[in-house]
């Protein structure tokens, strides 16, 4: 029961963070701000949702897979945003 409440809280918070990231993507003025908002908020959101789901499972393999998913997402987001931001500086595209 306590776990259920925790899951609901975590998943709700996760959805809020993802939505905040999307709002940032749509509302912020330039590329670097958008990248900053989106990658951080989205990955925190995914992490919270994953955590909420881990609490629901009794199977350790599923839990490991979910955490692996999050770690991969973090690595990919860090790499992708670094690639996009670095080049924007070099080519002066970000204004």
């Amino acid at each position, binding site marked *: 029961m306590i776990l259920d409440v925790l899951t609901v809280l975590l998943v709700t918070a996760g959805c809020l963070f993802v939505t905040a990231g999307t709002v940032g993507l749509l509302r912020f003025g330039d590329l670097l701000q958008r990248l900053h908002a989106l990658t951080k908020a989205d990955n925190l959101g995914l992490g919270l949702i994953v955590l909420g789901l881990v609490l629901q499972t009794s199977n350790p393999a599923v839990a490991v897979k979910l955490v692996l998913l999050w770690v991969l997402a973090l690595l990919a987001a860090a790499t992708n945003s670094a690639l996009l931001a670095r080049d924007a500086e070099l080519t002066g*595209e970000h204004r």
Partner: protein
Amino acid sequence: MSWETVLDVLLATSVLGVAVATLFAPRRTSSVMLFLVLGLLLVLVWTRLGAPDVALAEAAIASGVTGALLVSALTRRSAAGSAETPRGGWRSAAAELAVAGTGGVLLGGVLVGAARDGLRPDRLGDLALDVDGVVDQPVTTVLLDLRALDTLLEVAVLAAAVLAALAVHREGESSIGIRSDTRPVLVSFVRLTTPVVLLLTGWFLVAGSSRPGGAFQAGAVLAGAALLLLLTGRKDLVPTGRWLRPAVVLGLAVFLAAAVLTRLVEGGWLDLPASWGVAVVLVVETALVVSIAAGLTVLVALSRPRYVDATASTETLGGAAPSDPPRRQTEELT
């Protein structure tokens, strides 16, 4: 109204909206990237329709190969500058929408009516669900056990497409090179993720016998890994040059060999015996994975821009163009 219905209606509306936006977006770039959004929405639709196999294939292909294919083909603008649709085409766009919408709704009505009346195709699948296949997963059973000939032809189509692409490639297969990007952040990321992706490939391949997954999904994921390796300049780990064509036709060859073998031993083409059928399926699937991955990688590599024009690119580098600067770039030819 249940929450399932809400999600379904939302998904259907989004698919329709994004499809229209994809087809009518004013820029090529938007069109292609919206198409990738459509791909992700379709993954969600497949999960709602109880087709995890199709969802897995779509996710593996849409996030990796299709994306790389379309996005890198974008980079080169056409000489005629047809990247933008002419302005003022709203009237014709509206007419097209009206025609397609009316026709689509009529066709949809007919299809739904037919499905309700039970005129839909007979459930061939009941056969697959009942039959005691070599492999214990309905979709893989259908693909490899009951419909082997169809799968064979599908692999043949992929091989033919790749060979055709190689044939129109002016420089021959020796020059399949992708401009690589060897910045440490990307290289170390690829080094970290490649083992995970290889693990995933193996898992999809083996998992295909008991749960959703299979040769195509594994091949698509493997192609994604091969592309990342190529993009970071690791040409040594990916078959290029004279190993290319053999790798592309390997799956087809092994499939044919299995067909001949079963014909000789069991007396029927691809008539898998219960005793060693699993081994045959695994060998064939492994060969298919290699060929599918090689074929998809080659298609992406060949559709990338080739044109060498160093002066034009230095010009665009200096001028910080406000939107979508057309860039020409050199491609390293190996």
